[in-house]
Every structure is written in structure tokens, then in C-alpha cells.
């Protein structure tokens, strides 16, 4: 089976800083890849590169068969799920409205929203504005979105940090579900203890990857 994401001696420069250099990585279906690195090591940039949100300036790479840095990625972006370290909610909207907005834009049935909110434990508080909600509640809303959109490749940027054990289990369930349906997951964190689901763990330091397990 073809790899869901590949990077071949890929480099990224942001402004005047080389953030990633000579990254080589292959993520196969059913695989959970962990990347551990200190703050500023390039973890978020690595995920945004694989999410096709930034283009490589050196080397090459693919995600879901589309070459990074080309217009091919526009056709596969909807199959990429990203949880970034800052929740992407609109503060003035309620949690349910945030979810509905995302689901409508992605073209999915909104009938699944109530179920998804129940699964993530937000059925009683989904009418709360995102600005009045905790980090964990916003994170649960993002998990609910990904339960509906079912991405083929899931990218988690410090997704478990600051979550209670129930929310942590939800993220774990999302990982299991993605992998179980033939997808792949990349988890990045500063904390090696958050790599319990990863089959392969890499260390990221000074923009370069080294395999740890």
C-alpha cells in the first residue's frame, strides 16, 4: 500500500530561519508516528508542511498522493485533519455553532452534529460561547468535527496537552478510529509521555529528525 505521507530530504525556511532541514519520513497506512522535540524545534512547522499548509523550499514530499507545494494538494486537503495547539474556534460563536459552521463548509450532513457533541461529552454545554469555554471544551469540539469528517491522515499538535483524562481518551479514540479505517496519525509533542500510541517515535532537534524507537 502506498505511503500516506512522504518527505524526501525536505527543508522549510520561514523568513530568514531554516526551520526544517533534510527531513526524510514515510508514514504508512495504519501507522501512528510520534515526533518529540523541544519548543521551537520545528514540530508545528513539520505538521503544517505535511498538512500542505506551507510549501517546502527544498526536497520534495507528498500527502495522500499529492505533491507538496503544488496545486495537487487542493484536492486532498479535505482528507487531512489537523488539531493545532491553539483551537481554531470562533470566539463569538457557541461550540455547537462552531461545529455546524465547519461541517456546513466541508459539505457534510449537519444531522450528525448532535451525535458528535454527545460522543465528546458536550451535549449539555454546546450552547456556550467559545470565548466562555475552557480549552478542553474547545478541543472536544475539534474532536467532534474530526469524528464527522473522518480524515485519512490525522495530525495532532500537542493535542493532549492540558486535557483531562476523559478528553485524553477521546483523542485516543480518534487516533484508534483513524488508524482502524486505514488512515495514519502523526502526533507531535514536547512530552515523550504523550507518545504512548505511537509505533515509531522520532526526535526533532535543530530542524532534523532522528529515529528514537
Amino acid at each position, binding site marked *: 500500500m502506498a505511503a500516506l505521507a512522504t518527505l524526501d530530504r525536505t527543508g522549510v525556511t520561514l523568513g530568514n530561519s531554516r526551520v526544517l532541514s533534510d527531513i526524510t519520513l514515510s508514514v504508512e497506512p495504519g501507522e501512528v508516528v510520534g515526533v518529540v522535540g523541544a519548543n521551537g524545534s520545528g514540530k508545528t512547522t513539520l505538521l*503544517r508542511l505535511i*498538512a500542505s*499548509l*506551507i*510549501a517546502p523550499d527544498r526536497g520534495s514530499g507528498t500527502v495522500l498522493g499529492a505533491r507538496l507545494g503544488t496545486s495537487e494538494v*487542493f484536492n486532498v*486537503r*479535505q482528507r*487531512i*485533519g*489537523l488539531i*493545532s495547539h*491553539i*483551537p*481554531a474556534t*470562533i470566539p*463569538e*460563536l457557541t461550540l455547537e*455553532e462552531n461545529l455546524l*459552521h*465547519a461541517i*456546513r*463548509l*466541508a*459539505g457534510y450532513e449537519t444531522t450528525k452534529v448532535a451525535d458528535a457533541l454527545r460522543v465528546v461529552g458536550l451535549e449539555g454545554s454546546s450552547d456556550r460561547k467559545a470565548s466562555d469555554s475552557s480549552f478542553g471544551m474547545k478541543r472536544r469540539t475539534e474532536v467532534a468535527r474530526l469524528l464527522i*469528517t473522518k480524515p485519512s491522515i490525522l495530525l495532532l499538535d500537542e493535542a493532549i496537552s492540558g486535557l483531562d483524562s476523559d478528553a485524553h481518551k477521546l483523542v485516543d479514540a480518534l487516533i484508534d478510529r483513524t488508524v482502524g479505517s486505514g488512515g495514519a496519525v502523526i502526533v507531535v509533542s514536547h512530552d515523550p509521555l504523550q507518545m504512548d500510541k505511537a509505533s515509531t517515535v522520532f526526535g526533532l532537534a535543530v530542524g532534523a529528525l532522528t529515529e528514537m524507537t
Partner: protein
Amino acid sequence: MSFWSQTMEIARVDMSLERRTGDVPQIVVPFAVIALLVFPLALGVDLSGISRIGPAVFWALGVLFGMQVALRQSASDSPERRDLYALLGVDPAAKFAGRTMSGAALTLGFFAALLVAMLVLYSPRLPQGWLAPTLLSAMLVAIGLTELGTLAGEVTAGLRSRTSLASLIVAPLAIPLIIGGSQTLESVAREATILPWILLLLATDLALAVAGVGLARPLEEASR
């Protein structure tokens, strides 16, 4: 999801956000009305002169403050929200069109409030049949100004100096809009045809729409 469904969803949520924050009726409109009051004081004109400058002041302040209405929506996009929209498969052109729709409706509402304030404060001598041409030109100016604001918002997305830079981009490019808007009323007063000015506004709106839709994707990609 189709282009138009995404456009309508973006416009619907933008309007809903405006209803909740109330920035236009609570901040922009009162500030513009204060500017209407201050203008004659700064010029030092006598009371009889005020009625003459009313429509010109309306268009000048309308475009300047309307620019803020047009710019505020695209300024509210966080980098995370932009990333999310990209990964949800939102067509940047649909985002441009949605923003333009909601922004134009808000700007038109702002123009209406400013027009009423100007009529009350300046008591201008208006020619017969002024209302319909004024509303038509206001609608076209609102559309053009919002297109310009949305486009400038995209050009400056991710830049630290985006607020001031976006205004700098919009102000000179809004000149055809201010000329078209003010000259429409002037033509009515002179009993001349308003067609050239309406065509100028239409052409400006169309050119901005083509630029906005065509550049939406490259600007979106370049902003990251």
C-alpha cells in the same frame, strides 16, 4: 459543498458575528456622526455653507469609515481559522464572495445611517429625485469598497502592520468610488445624466470582483 453554499455560509456567519459584537452600530456609526459634527467646525464655514457641503462630506466620511467596516471582517481571521478553512476545502474565492456580500450589506447599512445623520445635521438642499440615484450609487460604492477591503485584507494577511497597511492600500484605490458616488448626486443636481458615473462604479466593482476571485487562491496560499 458548492461555491455558492460556501459563499452563503461565510456571509451568514459574518453577519451573525456582527449582530453579536455590534461594532458597526455601536462604534463605527457614532464615530462617523461625531466626525460629521466636527467637520464644519474644522472648516470654519458659516451656517449657510453647511447645507452646501453636506453631500460631499457624506461621501468623504462614508468612504473613510466604510473602509473600516470593509476591513474589520478579514482582520478577524486568526491563522488557525485560515488553516481550518483551507483544510475544510473552503474555496478562497467563495470566502472572498461571502465576505463581500456580508461586508457590502453592513456598509450599505452604515451609509444609510450616515445619510440620515447628514440630512438632519446639514439640512442640505437636495435636487428633486435625488434618493433613488443616491441609493443606487451608495449600493455600488458599498460593494466596491468591501471588495477592496477584503482584497486588501488578504494581501496583508499575516503581516504585523496589516491594519495600517490595508488602509493605505484601500484609500487611493477607493478614489473612483468616491468620485462615482459624489458625482452621481452632482449630476442629478445639474439635471445631467448619471449614466457615466454609474458605469464607472459598475466597472470598478466588476474589476475588483474579477481581481478578488482570481487572486483569492494565490493570496491565500502566500499568506501562510
